[in-house]
């Protein structure tokens, strides 16, 4: 078990023939992800990296029984590509493309409403279930199968935390990059719900940052349920100047709010163990687990 993707996942890649598409499809195949084809309008019938190419997602899904798609196309095409995958009924759509216009994401969210599709991203590092399935741009050299679930807004920081966890013997069930943009697919709450239902996951690490309301919503959700598993959070940007965009678009909220201090206070009040800084996550997992030994053992 894991969340959203596992060894049963059958992946197609939208934009497989591009430079990045080729690179990351090859990496996914080498990692052991079951890749079954690619989509490139006008190239249907051809092959790339030993896999069949299709003109549309629907054709690809029908021929290959794909249930997941990696969208790795230039930003102007990313919105329509996500909508095409959603409308074709793909179960998990992962978009790593950066700089997707917000009005395009608005249409994507409209297409998503009422469907069962899980959208991850855009501007996400993707999703990794160690030892089973990699969909995205993250390194896998330090990934270790195990029982920590990670959900994060940033890419390289997640890889760093994952590496620290693995070094300490804390393997991962699944890591989900929810992406650094204002409008995105699954959020912290969706990931928390999925990790709660996943018997493999014993503790959850949230990696948040300034801007947006995702951390506050996670805190509200955790207050509303008896979560039953230890949750740790690292929120970065405590000392960032206000009103500036710090790399991710989502760090600058047009509506204000969302300081790191506020997020940390709300998460702490919801029973989340706070990792003070990036090197404190492993210790925080230990602290959180020690606090809830009965609950962890009961599962």
């Amino acid at each position: 078990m894991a969340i959203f993707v596992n060894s049963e996942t059958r992946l197609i890649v939208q934009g497989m023939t591009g430079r990045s598409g080729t690179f990351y499809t090859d990496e996914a195949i080498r990692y052991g992800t079951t890749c079954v084809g690619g989509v490139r309008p006008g190239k249907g019938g051809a092959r790339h990296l030993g896999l069949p190419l299709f003109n549309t997602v629907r054709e690809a899904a029908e021929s290959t029984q794909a249930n997941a798609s990696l969208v790795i196309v230039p930003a102007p095409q990313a919105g329509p590509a996500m909508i095409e995958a959603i409308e074709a009924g793909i179960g998990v759509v992962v978009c790593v493309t950066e700089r997707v216009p917000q009005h395009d994401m608005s249409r994507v969210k409209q297409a998503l409403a009422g469907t069962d599709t899980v959208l991850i991203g855009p501007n996400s590092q993707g999703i990794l279930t160690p030892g089973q399935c990699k969909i995205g741009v993250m390194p896998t050299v330090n990934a270790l199968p195990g029982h920590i679930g990670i959900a994060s807004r940033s890419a390289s920081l997640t890889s760093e935390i994952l590496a620290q966890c693995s070094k300490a013997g804390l393997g991962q069930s699944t890591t989900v990059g929810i992406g650094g943009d204002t409008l995105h697919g699954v959020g912290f709450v969706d990931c928390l719900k999925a990790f709660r239902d996943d018997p493999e996951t014993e503790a959850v690490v949230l990696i948040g940052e300034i801007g947006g309301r995702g951390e506050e919503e996670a805190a509200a959700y955790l207050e509303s349920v008896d979560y039953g598993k230890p949750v740790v959070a690292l929120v970065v940007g405590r000392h960032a100047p206000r009103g500036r965009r710090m790399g991710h678009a989502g760090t600058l909220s047009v509506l204000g709010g969302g300081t790191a201090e506020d997020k940390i206070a709300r998460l702490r009040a919801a029973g989340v163990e706070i990792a003070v800084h990036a090197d404190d996550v492993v210790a925080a997992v230990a602290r959180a687990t020690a606090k809830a030994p009965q609950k962890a053992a009961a599962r």
Partner: protein
Amino acid sequence: MFLAEYQSKELLAQYGVLAPDGRPARSPDEAQRLCKEIDARKYVVKAQIGAGGRGLAGGIRFAATPSAVADEARRLLGSTLVTDQTGPAGETVTIVQVEAAIDIAQSCFVAIAFAPETGQPMLLASSAGGVEFEQRARMDEDTAQSCPLSPDSPEARAEIASFLTGVGITEAQSTAIDAIFAARHAFTENDMTLIEINPFARTSDGRWIAVDAKVAIDPNASFRRPEFASMVADRPAPADELAAQKHNINLVRLDGNIGVIANGAGLGLATNDMIMDAGGKPANFMDIRTTASSMDVARGVEILLADDRVSAILLTIHGGGMTSADTVAEGVNFAYAKATRKLPVIAYISGKHADWGHRILRERKVPVESCDTLSAAVGRVVELAGQRRAR
């Protein structure tokens, strides 16, 4: 990216949102001359800067006559306004908007933005307007109430009517609703991410007017909205931030003396937090994007080496994807090979090809000191930067 007030109001007016009669002016003479074209009994002269909070900073001045308008314009043009949104350096005023002063019967706040959860446009509104709204909102982020703003239809208008009634916007409500749907049209047609109208004011003759308006356009949509590129009123970015952007690097200038190179926004934020906690001060935030080449990285390092405030560099790299640790190390090496000023580098390198990264820096004689953890690297660079400043 924000448009200036006068541009925001001009754009909204094209869709039917009323605004006071006004013109932008670049000199006191021009400001005085424009008064003839403006139908007004009293004037207001407003500094056009890309940041809010300007009313409290003296950027809005009333004038009874055209010659008083010229005096106020003279006072504002070329001056630097410091508001709580400009940062300590403030912003220089190069344009003023000369407008008819409005007789305000009721002053409110409305805004349109995407609801993060649904991704659909929402309306935010408050019966407090102008500076009063800004002050209240600072204390309580829930000052404005929100409601979904569906495309124009009789049902959508009925929903907005009952929402506005709840907020306290009841007088001449149907004209307020006209203005709101006109603004929604402008929002969807122009890749806007925010429209903020404050004050949204009712005149005694029952019109609702955008006395001030702020529009943000999505920079990610520039490929299909090239017309906005020349209009952007964002505070001019420092030259080094613009240079970095060309090389896939997000750079934000800060006021410390530790140059920071990190690959990834989250890692950069995490690194800067740790520097501050350890008593140091970063000179910048740097996020090398995951697609950066070694030449892009080299340019980022050059910018830091050329910054004479910087006394030591912290390199935080987690190699991954297409920018593995060796790619970043190559970039650092390129920059150092050309540089005359070779600042010490403290490095924490992990992730994909971390060992190659270390080897490249060591063998090419970059003055690098590697640490095994991020905390150790941060501690060391803070110590070093402190010593070098004291010298």
